[in-house]
């Protein structure tokens, strides 16, 4: 450590800046591995934030909860009904007990958001669309299903073929418990092959139509056929 000398400032001192630069880059790159875990425990602190801010910080297990019309809809088991109508032979409503009386399906799938985050190995339980539709009878003219959320005006649709994917379901359990309010209680659409915006939460009405139509985000420029790895600019 030389004493301050009357020399140009670049002639003395040590290039600690280069080490700092490499250190920051190294820590940053390594965070690709531990960043997910770190944000998980940081999220406990974020629950104290106002809900508008919470949507931009990661949730408890890597989820980010978006809302287009806060607050989240509330689920009242005594009054909740799921309406299934449109191009069906027997339009009807389901209580949660009636929905759960249909054949139950279980799956563990990864959830991918179009903005780049993913949650691996989410366990879902619910009803396959083949079973749900069998309970109402599909008319020959039907080609698509529209899902309306209790969080208006959120809607989206799938073709019947997309809805019959082996891993698509109307889920009422997530990670071995009832779906929580923020994840769409009591029932939500799960389409693992597509980005999360197709997974309508707080589903309140299912309408069979001739053709699929643009959902909430699709009206805002997102792809209707939102396959992970093959849509939205890819």
């Amino acid at each position, binding site marked *: *450590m*030389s*004493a*301050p000398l*009357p020399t*140009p*400032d*670049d002639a*003395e*001192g*040590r*290039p*600690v*800046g*280069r080490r*700092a*630069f490499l250190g*920051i*880059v190294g820590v*940053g*790159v390594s*965070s*690709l*591995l*531990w*960043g*997910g*875990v*770190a*944000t998980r425990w940081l999220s406990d602190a974020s629950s104290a934030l106002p809900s*508008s801010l919470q*949507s*931009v910080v*990661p949730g408890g297990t*890597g989820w980010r909860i*978006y*809302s*287009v019309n806060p607050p989240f809809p509330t689920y009242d088991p005594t009054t909740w009904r799921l309406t299934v109508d449109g191009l069906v032979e027997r339009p009807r409503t389901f209580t949660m007990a009636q929905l759960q009386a249909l054949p139950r399906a279980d799956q563990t799938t*990864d959830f*991918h958001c*179009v*903005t*780049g*985050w*993913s949650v691996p190995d989410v366990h879902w339980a619910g009803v396959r669309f083949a079973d749900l539709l069998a309970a109402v009878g599909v008319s020959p003219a039907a080609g698509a299903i529209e899902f309306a959320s209790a969080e208006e005006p959120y809607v989206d649709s799938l073709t019947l073929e997309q809805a019959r994917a082996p891993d698509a379901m109307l889920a009422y359990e997530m990670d071995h418990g009832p779906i929580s309010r923020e994840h769409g209680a009591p029932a939500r659409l799960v389409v693992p092959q597509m980005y999360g915006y197709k997974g309508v939460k707080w589903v309140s009405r299912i309408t069979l139509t001739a053709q699929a139509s643009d959902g*909430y*985000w699709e*009206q*805002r*420029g*997102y792809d209707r056929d939102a396959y*992970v*790895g093959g849509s*939205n*600019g*890819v």
Partner: protein
Amino acid sequence: MASESAPARQILAAPRRVLRFGPTERAFHWIHAAGFTVMTGTGVVMYLPALSARISDRPTLKAIHLTAAVLWVAALVVVPLLGDRRALRAAVRQLETFDADDRRWLLGPGRHRRRGPGWRARIPQGRFNAAEKAHSIVQAALAVLFVVSGVLLWLGERDTAFRLPGTIPLHDGAMFVALVLVAGHVYLSLVHPPTKPAMRGMLTGEVDADWAEAHHPKWDAPPADAPPPGYDAARRSRPGAAPVVAALGVATTAVLVVVLVVL
């Protein structure tokens, strides 16, 4: 040293100026600033659902974001190739070198010295003060991290195997840190009276000599001779500016081709 010859004050009308940034350094800075502004703007809209719903054109925003990213990286590569590399190397060397005064400036004056108000102003600084050095080092590291995490996001859209748990936290975290730093940087260059005169240096290359002597006394600043209007300044900036303009042109064309092919 500038401070030794300071008292000589020749012309009253024209304030003495010293040269702080050449055209290449300024181009480097403004490319970085423009890239950050465009990418933060489009990124925040895509990232905040409330804004996404209102602006509601993700494909366009994404195209702008990616185009800006490619342009930015290309320009950061091309400008040093065609510009004044010696000046850039000198700046980098000065920015990454911390002497005893810099360490005192950053870490405190030490036990045996008085802190008191304005203690930092009494620690002599070179062409860049310690905070400017630290800021540019952190920004340079953030730039690398933005690129790494951004490329992973781009790949993750094509193959979910590239979706690492930390990619989004890293891209977001870098954004938050950079936003805070840039907010402070803009405040110091536009609002804060003692540091505001530095803005002229990034716009024209020259800063007030008295300000430089007061705030950067260890800097052996080359004088910017008060030129006959137009002549000297043009001569000084032309050799540096032409390659920069050429670089931007080449980068823009290259990127437009890339973007048209990719998107």
